[in-house]
């Protein structure tokens, strides 16, 4: 599902963000990626989303070699992923329903299928009753659930969550990760970047720790989660 082979990234400013990361994540896994600020987590996410390409090394996601991917193929690659950001990134001029439907519209799904799929996904995240609300009328937790619904609506094999609990209350954070846990139970691979050690400890999943652009530890390599 995800293969990083000796991935290095040096930005034009001279910053060495990644210094040879090698990791493998299988289909159906739930992996926490943790590390302090500046450890290289953001660059790693950018690599996964094909926002950046490595200076050297190989990045493969969902069976695609991202190093060699042409620009016009990127949107089609991204449709195989679901992405959740710390700042939710909902379109402020669209209501909840439209924000979720938008991810389907870009993939040319018919209007009939959109009408069937969106309410179902909203029911999974418990927001059917807020379908017509605008993002600024929702709490942080609700906004993140909308973002999660949008990430799920295309039925992706992989969900990448970049600090999804960073902007919400601790009790709601648990709810969000629990939701991700449920999604993982039906076979979706989850990669979640976080620095909240309590959450990581509560869920007992594989943890990859990044420091100075390198994998410092990987609980899978240590023989258990």
């Amino acid at each position, binding site marked *: 599902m995800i293969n990083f082979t000796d991935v290095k990234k040096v930005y034009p400013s001279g910053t060495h963000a990644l210094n040879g990361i090698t990791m493998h994540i299988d289909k159906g896994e739930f992996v926490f990626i943790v590390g302090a600020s500046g450890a290289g987590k953001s660059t790693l996410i950018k690599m996964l*989303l094909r*926002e950046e390409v490595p200076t050297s090394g190989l990045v493969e996601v969902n069976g695609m070699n991202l190093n060699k991917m042409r620009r*016009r193929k990127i*949107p*089609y*690659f*991204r*449709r195989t992923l679901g*992405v959740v*950001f710390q700042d939710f*990134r*909902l*379109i*402020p*001029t669209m209501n909840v329903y439209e924000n979720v439907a*938008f*991810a389907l*519209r*870009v*993939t*040319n799904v*018919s*209007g009939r299928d959109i009408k069937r799929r969106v309410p179902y996904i909203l029911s999974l995240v418990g927001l059917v009753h807020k379908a017509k609300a605008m993002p600024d009328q929702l709490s942080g937790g609700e906004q993140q659930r909308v973002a999660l619904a*949008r990430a799920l609506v*295309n039925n992706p094999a992989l969900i990448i969550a970049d600090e999804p609990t960073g902007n919400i209350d601790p009790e709601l954070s648990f709810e969000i990760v629990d939701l991700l846990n449920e999604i993982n139970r039906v076979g979706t691979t989850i990669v979640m970047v976080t620095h909240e050690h309590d959450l990581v400890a509560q869920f007992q999943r594989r943890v990859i720790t990044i420091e100075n652009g390198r994998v410092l530890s990987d609980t899978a390599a240590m023989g258990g989660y």
Partner: protein
Amino acid sequence: MRGSSLGYLIRTGVKSVFRNRLMSFAAIGVLVACMILIGAAILFSMNINSIVEFTEEQNEIVVFCDDSLDAQALARVSDDLNATDNIIDVVFFSREEAFEYMKERIGAENLFEELTADIYPDAYKVRVKNLGQLEETVAQIEGYDGVIQVNAPTDIADVVVEIKSAVYVAGIGIVAILAVVALVIIANTIKITVFNRRKEINIMKFVGATDSFIRLPFIIEGLVIGLLAAAFAFFIIWGAYDYLITWLEGNQSMLYRQFQDQIVPFGNIALEMFGAFAGAGVFIGVGGSMIFVRKYLRV
């Protein structure tokens, strides 16, 4: 792209104009202001040009013929004049008419009692199209058989030609400067509009929207804004121009009475002006959106 998607994108583009009404209003306002300034400059220089052309047409050249010419020879001179390129019309002015004209002008009838019309030569009065070529035309006429002298208002001609070229250069200069200023202001307005929505573009990129899917609503939005601005500018300038003419008619100043027939009616250029406004509006709206959205597509 599926038909329903295209319909959705077009609807989204049109809705965006109203959703982002503050920025749409700013973009339309800037476009309207620029179009009005340019339109007013064009109308002003067209009117000045029309007045100068009218003045130019008031020229009169007198071509004096040799006394010895008979009717046939005079007709030949007339044919030569009519065949000359730069001449609008040719009117015969007989020695008898000249005699009567001078008698009337000088007023002292007893002075003419013992004289006959033979003291004046037969002549032709001609008007030229282009005063800029007056000297060449005069030289050409002086070369015709039977022509003894040509009287032409060369001094006035020089002044009119200078005014005309000054109006032309100033008109083009003002319109060009306004167009450049307008483009800079409009480019910045569109840039701000797109900048305000960079997050939206970024989100679209991460859910897998293709560049054309992201661009199309912006292009439609640019198109709608361009057309709305063109329509507003056109009707405002039309109303203001008609109001100004009505006001001038009401005041009946001497200058107005002198040149009232030379005022260019708005109907004469309405179609061209609307076409130019709409074309410029669409070009700027669509072109600007395409250029500035491009920057945020590189994610």
